[in-house]
């Protein structure tokens, strides 16, 4: 599902409420029957969120970052387990380079690997294509398709309407925190194309 809307329409806020980072000022939200505030840990086992920020430490290397995530998630954390993951996003040649030396796109790709380790049922993606070059965008598209095929639900907020309209089954348009339109990806592209 795609959340579309102009800046300030509430896309990011909605994703952050679903992730339990914000409390809703009113109303209620459930993720697989769980309250993201009260059943925070259970909820976070079910979902993974990728935001504007990279959630990285500049002074750690890519492999160290992955190792810490893997250990926190109780996943295999040997180099032999983690190198194929780095290779899957094209970072295998720079496992020992500190993140400070990464470009914005490399940071994004490393952050995306969190979700591989988390193996969530629900992916919350806030502007997943930002800061990526053409190849990076293609990789993210493939990665979203793979996640869907693996059975995960994906909710993403994006301004890249043409790109996301090819990926989604459902789309909603938000304005000032309200849903003003529902439909599918094609309909969304058409509607926003007309508005433009």
């Amino acid at each position, binding site marked *: 599902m795609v959340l579309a809307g102009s800046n300030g329409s509430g896309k990011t806020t909605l994703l952050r409420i679903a992730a339990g980072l914000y409390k*809703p000022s009113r109303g209620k939200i459930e993720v697989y029957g769980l309250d993201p505030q009260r059943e925070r840990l259970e909820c976070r086992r079910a979902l993974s969120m990728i935001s504007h920020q*990279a959630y*990285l430490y500049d002074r750690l290397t890519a492999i160290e970052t992955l190792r810490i995530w893997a250990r926190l998630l109780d996943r295999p954390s040997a180099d032999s387990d983690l190198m194929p993951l780095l290779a899957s996003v094209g970072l295998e040649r720079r496992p020992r380079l500190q993140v400070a030396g990464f470009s914005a796109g490399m940071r994004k790709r490393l952050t995306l690997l969190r979700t591989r380790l988390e193996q969530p049922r629900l992916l919350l993606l806030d502007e997943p294509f930002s800061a990526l070059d053409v190849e990076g965008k293609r990789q993210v598209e493939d990665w979203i398709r793979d996640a869907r095929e693996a059975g995960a639900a994906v909710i993403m907020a994006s301004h890249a309407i043409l790109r996301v309209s090819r990926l989604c089954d459902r789309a909603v348009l938000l304005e000032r925190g309200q849903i003003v339109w529902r439909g599918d990806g094609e309909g969304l592209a058409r509607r926003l194309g007309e508005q433009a």
Partner: protein
Amino acid sequence: MNVIRQALVLVGKDMLLEWRGRSRFISVLLFGVVTLLLFSFAVGPDSVALRAAAAGFLVLALLLSSTLSLSESFRLEQEERALEGLVLLPVDPVALFYGKAIGNTLFLLLLAPIFTPVALVLYSVELGAMKILTLVGLWALAAAGLSAPGTLYAAMTSRLRSQDVLLPLLLFPLVVPVLMGSVKAMALVLGGDPLEQLRSWTVLLGGFAVIYWSLCGLLFPYAIEEGG
């Protein structure tokens, strides 16, 4: 068990970051040494007065250095919102607190081997090996007593621009018992303990450390909430 494992992973992460950013440790270390030096200048060449105040100066140097190190430790977490990244993982907030607080305690412990000999030389105090060990033990208790509430308040103020001002304002009143206990206990080590009061002051210091570590662990999940 899971909480302990996660906390240890986070301690390892913090130690690695400290090692990579050694300039931060050196800055805090130099700040503390300069503070000790300034205290000795303020009192002047009166060696009796210096010896009498040595424990107080040593603990104040630790306290002032701790505010620098605590706020810095969360500045790293706010770059690229790394703390939010940890919060989004299924990691118990209690593990986040203990991982961070243990890391901060270890950081303050590493200052002891430098601060203690500098203070002993500057304030003309002569101590045997056993007493130096006791002093280091008390330092560890004081560091633990400062780190737990310091970690909680540093987390609460980490998103604020005025963190550098707010952190000491919030922290200092709360750690008065740690300050008093550690100054009194260290003064007894440095100046002699004819009435055998050291044990009771050490128990008091340890007691406050236990209270702070328990309470702050419970409150930490609320401190890292953003609210929306």
